């Protein structure tokens, strides 16, 4: 039976997050973007709303609202501002997710309550200067002593890892060599404040300027062996599975950002008069808006279906890659169109379209570039 109705609690959630984003984030988004400033205050407010740990069960401090609800929340945040959507998406999909899905009972009890309450943020340290799309090329090493890992290496572009709230980074490191000669990769929880672990915020970003991005350095950084996430050697599969989930939240950012840019352009096109009439009476403009609305509808259906598959514990890896690819490219076309419809004003910060336009750019790069999504999809379809 096919059913496109959202649950009542999901409708309430959507209205609540929309209201919150419009009242609490929208008035500050432009300034935070301009100053390239991460807002602890708004992050705390998002945490109070329960935006961290939405798919985590109540016993660990989550709300058990499920994956579709989480995606709706990210979508609604991104409809107003990409940076704040990124803080929530990375905090959940990349930070809380791996600990919740792969952590030991002790790790879950130790970290999840403070991550779900927003007291601390978790981050996922995978990318390295020489290991981007080729995430298996990780060079960071963790050498085992009696009861400790000694970590050496560096990470780059790690979201939420160098701000006041950063609490723990899940670090993918080479922990040995497998019999087949390949690297053994493991994920290790490294609390911020551990000696030998330093973070440097990365500035001068084109987009997500109010989201915190960090370079991380490990210099004989020692953590207990107990900090291994799940089993030693599971790092690579944990990473792949984390990215599957992460892709859904990037897709949600594409969908929400497209929606926000579309609404802005639609409103503007009704108010702006040229040649004595509102510009949306020109067919070139109205058809472009019609195309935007159509693509957004298709994007939403694809993304929600992928989330539904995940929520119902079905295979969703292919659909997640498709949703990520499609939603981020829809947002590209929509933000391009929105800037065009606003004309010169589309290029001015004050009008908002340009921020959507810039924020979109990351979506085709982060958590697997569009090229990588096409590789994933082509493998799924048997190429």
């Amino acid at each position, binding site marked *: 039976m096919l059913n496109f109705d959202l649950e*009542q*609690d999901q*409708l*309430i*959630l959507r*209205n*609540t997050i929309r*209201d*919150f984003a419009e009242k609490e984030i929208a008035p500050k988004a432009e300034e935070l973007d301009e100053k390239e400033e991460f807002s602890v205050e708004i992050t705390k407010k998002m945490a*109070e*709303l*329960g*935006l961290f740990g*939405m798919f985590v069960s*109540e016993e660990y401090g989550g*709300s*058990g*609202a499920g994956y579709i*609800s989480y995606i709706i*929340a990210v979508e609604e945040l991104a409809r107003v501002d990409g940076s704040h959507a990124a803080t929530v998406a990375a905090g959940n999909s990349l930070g809380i997710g791996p600990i919740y899905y792969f952590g030991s009972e002790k790790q879950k009890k130790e970290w999840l309550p403070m991550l779900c309450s927003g007291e601390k943020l978790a981050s996922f340290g995978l990318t390295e200067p020489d290991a981007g799309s080729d995430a298996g090329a990780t060079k960071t090493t963790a050498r085992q002593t009696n009861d400790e890992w000694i970590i050496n290496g560096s990470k780059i572009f790690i979201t939420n890892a160098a701000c006041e709230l950063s609490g723990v980074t899940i670090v993918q490191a080479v922990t040995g060599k497998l019999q087949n000669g390949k690297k053994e990769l493991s994920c290790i929880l490294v609390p911020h404040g551990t000696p030998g672990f330093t973070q440097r915020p990365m500035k001068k970003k084109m987009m997500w300027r109010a989201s915190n991005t960090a370079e991380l350095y490990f210099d004989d950084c020692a953590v207990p062996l107990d900090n291994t996430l799940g089993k030693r050697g599971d790092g690579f599969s944990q990473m792949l599975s984390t990215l599957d989930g992460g892709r859904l939240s990037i897709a949600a950012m594409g969908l929400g950002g497209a929606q926000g840019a579309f609404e802005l352009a639609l409103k503007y096109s009704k108010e702006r*008069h040229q040649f*004595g*009439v*509102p510009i949306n009476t020109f067919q070139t403009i109205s058809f472009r808006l019609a195309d935007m609305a159509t693509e957004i509808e298709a994007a939403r259906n694809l993304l929600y279906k992928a989330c539904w598959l995940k929520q119902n514990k079905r295979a969703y890896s292919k659909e997640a890659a498709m949703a990520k690819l499609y939603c981020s490219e829809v947002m590209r076309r929509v933000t391009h169109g929105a800037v065009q419809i606003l004309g010169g004003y589309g290029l001015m910060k004050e009008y908002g379209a340009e921020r959507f336009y810039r924020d979109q750019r990351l979506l085709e790069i982060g958590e697997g570039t569009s090229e990588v999504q096409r590789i994933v999809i082509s493998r799924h379809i048997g190429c």
Partner: protein
Amino acid sequence: MNIIVLVKQVPDTETRIKLKAGSTDIDREGINMVLNPYDEFAVEEAIKIKEAGGGSVVIITAGEAKAEEAVRTALAMGADRAIRLDGAEFAGADSYSTAKALAKAISAEQYDLILCGKQAVDDDSVQVGTLVAAMLGIPSVNMVTKLEVAGGSMKASREIEGGHEVVEVPTPCVITAQKGLNEPRYPSLPGIMKAKKKELKAVALGALGLSADEVGAAGAKSAVVELSLPPERKAGQVFEGEAAEIVPKVVKLLRDEAKVV
């Protein structure tokens, strides 16, 4: 303190309203419905009073099943349970027959205080709170911007023309909320999840103890005979040139065309 909050679900103020052809109603298909913004103040105030001094908060609405979304929003904010007057007989009500049904539902409950928004932003009739008070034979204070519990009475502040008035009324009473009364909280996600499990009772006409001719369209004292959208705004006109030259033109148009001076 046992508090009852009356709420209504209304179209989101951003919604583009369309009329339903051949009726005196709007087309509700596909529009986003929300908890009436003034009712949010009422719900928040009730929860604050309960948090400070204990008691209970019960939400009552007269609306179709879809309105349960607004009711659950109030439950997610922290109200304890809810009642929805359920049935086709309640449809087509005016302020009078709505108040009649609500007052009857209220009288089956224990209450010290009844809160509601000063008006619903869809039909703007601004009558239901006062009517309910009259039907229950209790006092009411409208458009309250500050409320304090003072023993067996309530101290309510209101903004009046050029000043500020503080009124004291004995409980039970009806207070209608004006913007400024408080900052309504956002329902938190855990709150939304908990609200799913809170009691929301649908009460039919029979159980309420009223007859079909007392409620809805049948019990109404007034009827909407026409509903129309405001005329489309025409594009503005820009006058260029020296002030001395254009002012007379503008005045002439204001007098002859806009007929405002």
